[in-house]
């Protein structure tokens, strides 16, 4: 049938054009990075089985973690508030309550021994100027260092919430939220900006955020971007693989490797979807009904045409 042939021609030319300007062009415009499935193959394998009790002593004592980090669930408060911490270290050291679930185990082990290398930020530190990463490497407490590190990581895992209890905001705030704001979720680098009864309290909060950002900017070289719309501007694959290894896309960036587990990465993505693609469930739901409606409409269109044209042939 002639009309069918015309339809095929129109469809083929449309699809060829679509393929060339969308999938083909984007393949050529953007670098493609395969996911490494968050295995951190470059980091040494874990050889020791940790003990949480010994780990607790190390974390609280010889490991000196609590000199900079808070552990809220264990009742250890931060030595300084976020703004002062950022002024001292460049960025606020994370609370360790849920570090054991947010970060990959292998990553945590390697991080404690050699933070700058594990975070992939060595290139940002000029050793000749005596620059070093604000997190001091753990040099051992006198015993087998691998065992000691495994003990500390096991302790952190023992106090963390379970993977199921880790919510998308918790995952994001731990992994990304001390450098990145998310305006659309009222998230700032120093916490959620709630509502204020008094204007001066709000201004005081805003000034804290500004001060924090100034320190962060000096430390990172530029202010890390707000991530509100990143799920639409970069997409899930980019964000996920960027977390695995920022150098893959942004060579020389001061953004550290985040070190999250695959599960945490999924939750970070979910958080960003909630921020920048909030209505995705409603879209899918509404889409179904509209499609059903419009297919019925098209069927009626077909029937009406058949009826009207019966006399015309």
């Amino acid at each position, binding site marked *: 049938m002639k009309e069918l042939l015309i339809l095929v021609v129109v469809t083929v030319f449309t699809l060829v054009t679509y393929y060339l300007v969308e999938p083909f062009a984007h393949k050529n415009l953007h670098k493609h990075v395969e996911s490494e499935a968050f295995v951190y193959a470059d980091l040494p394998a874990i050889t020791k089985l940790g003990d949480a009790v010994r780990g607790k002593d190390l974390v609280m004592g010889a490991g000196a973690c609590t000199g900079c980090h808070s552990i809220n669930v264990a009742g250890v408060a931060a030595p300084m508030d976020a703004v002062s911490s950022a002024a001292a270290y460049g960025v606020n050291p994370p609370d360790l309550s849920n570090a054991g679930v947010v970060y990959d185990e292998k990553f945590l082990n390697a991080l404690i021994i050699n933070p700058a290398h594990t975070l992939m930020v060595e290139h940002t530190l000029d050793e000749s100027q005596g620059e070093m990463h604000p997190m001091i490497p753990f040099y051992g407490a006198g015993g087998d260092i691998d065992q000691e590190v495994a003990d500390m990581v096991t302790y952190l895992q023992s106090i963390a919430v379970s993977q199921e209890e880790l919510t998308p905001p918790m995952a994001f705030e731990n992994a990304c939220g001390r450098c990145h704001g998310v305006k659309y979720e009222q998230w700032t680098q120093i916490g959620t900006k709630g509502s204020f009864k008094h204007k001066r309290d709000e201004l005081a909060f805003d000034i804290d955020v500004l001060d924090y950002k100034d320190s962060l900017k000096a430390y990172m070289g530029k202010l890390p971007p707000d991530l509100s719309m990143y799920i639409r*501007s970069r997409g899930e694959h980019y964000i996920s693989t960027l977390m695995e290894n920022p150098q893959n896309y942004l060579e020389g960036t001061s953004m550290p490797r985040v070190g999250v587990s695959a599960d945490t990465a999924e939750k970070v993505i979910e958080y960003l979807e909630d921020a920048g693609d909030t209505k995705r469930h409603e879209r899918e739901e509404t889409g179904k009904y509209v499609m059903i409606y*419009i297919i019925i409409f098209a069927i009626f269109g077909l029937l009406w045409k058949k009826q009207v044209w019966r006399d015309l042939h």
Partner: protein
Amino acid sequence: MAHFTKATSIKDWLDQRLAIVKVEKVLASEYWIPKNINFLWAMGMILVITFVMLVISGIFLLMYYQPNVDLAFDSVNYTIMREVGYGWLWRHVHGVAASVVFLIIYIHMFTGIYYGSYKKGREMIWISGMLLFIAFSTEAFSGYMLPWGQMSYWAGMVITNLFAGGSLHADGLVEWIRGDYVPAQAFLTRFFMLHVLLVPLAIIGLIGLHFGALRIPHVNNQDGEEIDFDEESKKYLAGDKAGSKVIRFANDFMAKDMMVVGFYLVFFFYLVFYHYGFAMDPVNFDPADGLKTPAHIYPEWYFLWSYEILRPFSTDVGLMAFAFAQGIFVFLPFLDRSPNAIPASRRGLFKYWFWAMLIDMIALTSMGKLPPEGAFSTIGLVAALVFIGLWIALPIITYFEKKA
């Protein structure tokens, strides 16, 4: 004053005052369309429906959009996409329709070229159609500025820069268009005005002209057959519907139109809900930043072919080639020297000209988005030269075309 009698019904009352019976005949039941047509003849109705969807979704967006450089991005991405009930739906309908409308325009245009529907007597249909194309292009470009994302800003920068005219250095003209040295508040507000008022008014007026231009020469048919509309319509009205070569606009033609519209809407809403990414460039979800140029700046897909004619040449030559590409389609009825108003398949060399032009424009479109490097640059340059060459060849090959 005319003589009015006591009305026998509401219809009669209205008819005495507005001549609705006659109007209905003129516009619908005795507006005669050839029967020998295929679904490509429904593109006009699809365009009307798509335009109506653009207007309606646009009205809803207009209620929440803020034309202010500090608020525009958030009013779209936060207020409309998150806060307003079904705001996301209106935005996706608007964005997808803005892209799909060009697909249909191109199909409509190439249908006209293929069947010779711009030939003697139908020149004004073609010219008003090309004016509509220019108006839609302006509408699309001005609308693209409004979310005030990175692509809005930088596309605005690049396109307004074209008006400097290369070596002419008409920088004052560029500043006048922008209302500033760079795209800023004055720029956003005036493009907002163009998008929601001036250009839509022009489009509506041109649609009227386009429809009006159809009345006297009548709609073409798929075999280029000369139809005596008076004779054939008499046959139809006498009851020989099957034997007549013409049909009523309503309901005959309309029924077929609505069937095609139905199938089209299935495709359209599939795109709106499940495949909208092609119409909303990811780069534009980064807020505008005058200090950070995106790695790649490219227009939406429907402008890529003319963008690619600009790119492979030096500045001045490129601008001339670009101006040529923008304007040349309008002159098609006069550049085609053959009197044959028949499908391209029966027109000798013109048949090859048609498919070469179509393929060349697709080649230009795809190269226009790719980075201008290596083979892509070469293909782009060749395709641009072929485009210009085809237009130069057109009067010659059609002059020697055998009369059918």
